[in-house]
């Protein structure tokens, strides 16, 4: 613990020195800002069409129409941005031989993995929380269901933590950043679409695959449905990926 804080500080510094943090935040906020703009437009078009048409309007509210779609987009866009945050973490230490410095210092492999993981999660949480202006703006002009928004942000953070843990693992198996990022995207896309677009041959199989999918657990949370099973799945997923990163670094010393 004593060594963990300076280590996290060093990792955070690296994010801001190399412009990675700014670029990821800029691209993410730009895209989400645009999605927000177009979904508000869509919402007002629909509102005009619905007005006086005599149709049922009980599900028609800004939280359902604007926010839900945005939360889903945030999750999906982050599949592509996660590797940018994580690919450097361990691969770069290996390539520049600074791993030798870390491994011969009184730091445990657990501290190294934890420090890098926590730094990446901090960057992620900062970026995700910067989108909080969206519900505030919606609340200002209309109204949002805040419990739904909090459940969704909770889901975004847990899902993002799971994605970053995969990124850390992929970075620990190679000393090349490109390989780490391609692997991360591959694994994340697989876990995102499995059970959905990627189905099984039988229904039973499909259900199992759906249970394994990151997306289906995220879906409940961003829909405003807080279920501890989803949270437990996402936390276990993260733990396994981080444990595998630890094993991968440890086994690297024996080769």
């Amino acid at each position, binding site marked *: 613990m004593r060594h963990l804080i300076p280590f996290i500080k*060093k990792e955070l*510094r*690296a994010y801001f020195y190399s412009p990675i943090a700014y670029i990821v935040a800029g691209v993410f906020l730009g895209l989400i800002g645009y999605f927000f703009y177009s979904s508000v437009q869509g919402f007002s078009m629909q509102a005009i069409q619905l007005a006086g048409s005599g149709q049922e309007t009980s599900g028609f509210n800004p939280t359902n129409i604007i926010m839900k779609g945005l939360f889903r987009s945030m999750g999906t866009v982050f599949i592509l941005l996660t590797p940018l945050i994580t690919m450097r973490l361990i691969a770069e230490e290996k390539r520049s031989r600074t791993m030798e*410095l870390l*491994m011969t210092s*009184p730091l*445990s492999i657990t501290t190294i993995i934890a420090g890098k993981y926590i730094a990446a999660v901090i960057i992620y949480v900062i970026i995700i929380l910067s989108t909080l202006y969206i519900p505030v703006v919606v609340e200002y002009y209309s109204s949002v269901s805040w419990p739904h928004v909090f459940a969704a942000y909770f889901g975004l953070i847990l899902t993002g933590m799971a994605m970053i843990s995969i990124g850390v693992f992929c970075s620990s198996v190679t000393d090349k950043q490109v390989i780490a990022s391609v692997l991360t995207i591959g694994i994340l896309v697989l876990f995102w679409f499995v059970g959905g677009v990627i189905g099984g041959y039988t229904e039973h199989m499909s259900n199992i695959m759906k249970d394994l999918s990151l997306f289906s657990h995220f879906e409940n949370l961003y829909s405003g449905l807080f279920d501890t099973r989803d949270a437990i799945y996402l936390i276990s997923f993260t733990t396994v990926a981080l444990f595998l990163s630890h094993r991968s670094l440890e086994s690297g010393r024996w*080769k």
Partner: protein
Amino acid sequence: MISVQNLTKTFGDRVAVNNVSFDVQKGEILGFLGPNGAGKTTTMRMLTGFIPPTEGCVTIDNLDIFEHPFEVKKKIGYLPEQPPLYFDMTVRECLGFVAEIHGMRGGMIDSSMDHVAELCGISHMLNRLTGNLSKGYRQRVGLAQALIHDPAILILDEPTAGLDPRQIIDIRNLIKDLGRERTVILSSHILPEVTNTCERIAVINNGNLMAVDTIELLSDKLGSEKTIVLNVKRPEHLDTVRLSSVSGVDDIKKHNDNEFVLTVSGGDDVLEKISASVVESGAGLTGIRVKRMTLEDIFLKIITGEKVQ
């Protein structure tokens, strides 16, 4: 202080280090000498706990490095062959980070940083990015990183590789100074480097430890043999059988028409007997000269297969 027992490391089928044992006393400078690919770096990596040995163990102050990694690693300052620097940090940040992961805090870091920067001659470089420094300065920053937590043991892997002659002299002097209070192990494939800075040398080749001794003892053991070159005017008169019976003469070889090369052991009286014998035979002695083994000869002799007991 450092005790290495039966250290072996294999990578797949390849044996990189084979059953190496030696001890290093407190305050000693030990030079690790061997050609490229001899197993120097692998041995040093095992000494620092970076990679675990396949067999054998390393103990430092009676603590096994794999049973008590944190206690042991605090005592070691390690400079790998390529200095481990974060190129996007300044020298000050690099040194500060290394100090922090060794558990140092606040004012302790500042005073220690000033001290090692002064020692390594990088005080005026503290605010430069390490990625923009020359090879020589990177090496010094690496050394400063290894020294910042004031370790009792310094392990330096080829500390002067790639430096210019002026920098080599600086670093050598620095290592000698450091060696007054610390135990130092350094590796090199350059002989003068080791003979200039180290008290004892360990010669390693193909993963095998060939010799560990002081330079004087090694040259005594291997250098007692001398080579004598004889020039004579009338070689047909030279009685080689009689000459080889002179005690101390081990071997006679005819080099060319007028020149003979003798391998002898023993002192100057052998030389006297040889010259007397040649003169008696009437071969017309025109020249006699003694060739002693240089350190290069000794080094070559060791690494080409002669194990020194």
